[in-house]
């Protein structure tokens, strides 16, 4: 059985989803990062506007292309614009 992707949600994305972490099932061969984000936003519609200004992160590295594959067991994060300091 394929392991799920761990989805980390921060700030506005966390608020939109109502949780800071999700487990998301992906096919054994993985899923394009852009498609994964769209699937999540389809289930949590309030996430959609936040995604437009967010960066996607796979295993701690920025996703450079929406076609980049997210595989079972990966950590996938949605980063709205930062606000530290």
């Amino acid at each position, binding site marked *: 059985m394929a392991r799920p992707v761990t989805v*980390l949600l*921060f*700030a*506005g994305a*966390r*608020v939109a989803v109502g949780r*800071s972490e999700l487990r998301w099932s992906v096919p054994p061969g993985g899923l394009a990062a852009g498609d994964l984000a769209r699937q999540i936003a389809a289930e949590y519609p309030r996430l959609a506007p936040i995604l437009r200004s967010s960066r996607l*992160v796979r295993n*701690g590295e920025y996703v450079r292309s929406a076609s980049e594959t997210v595989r079972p067991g990966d950590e996938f*994060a949605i*980063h*709205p*614009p*930062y*606000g*530290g*300091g």
Partner: protein
Amino acid sequence: MTDRPLSVAAAFRALEGPGAGAVSIFVGRVRPDPGPAGRVVALVYEAHRGPALARFRALARAAERRFRTLRVVIWHRSGRLRVGEISVIVGTACAHRAPAFAAARFLIEDLKVTVPIWKSERARPGRRPRRRPARPGGRSAG
């Protein structure tokens, strides 16, 4: 990234060492600004810890390359901070003062836009809390 209070004295000690004729320290603290949901009484900071720490290390290396810093401190709080608490300390030690200032400024400016840290406001009790994560121009000057 730490859950514990930040200390300016500890930051200065971490910057000590031979050749450091000039030390510049910047401290950001939570301000009690008025907001639409009432006066801010606290900020809650969250971070994507691993990438945040990796970015801190990259910033330290960039400061060393660009400004010849001898030592650097980049410390940020996470969790709930009351008004007046220190949210961030950046510090630089250089031979001379111009690069020390420039490097400290570089670190805090870059930190705010490149490190995965977010804050949300908690307003005065008695009103409904209002979440404004990642809003530019937040309630900490840091």
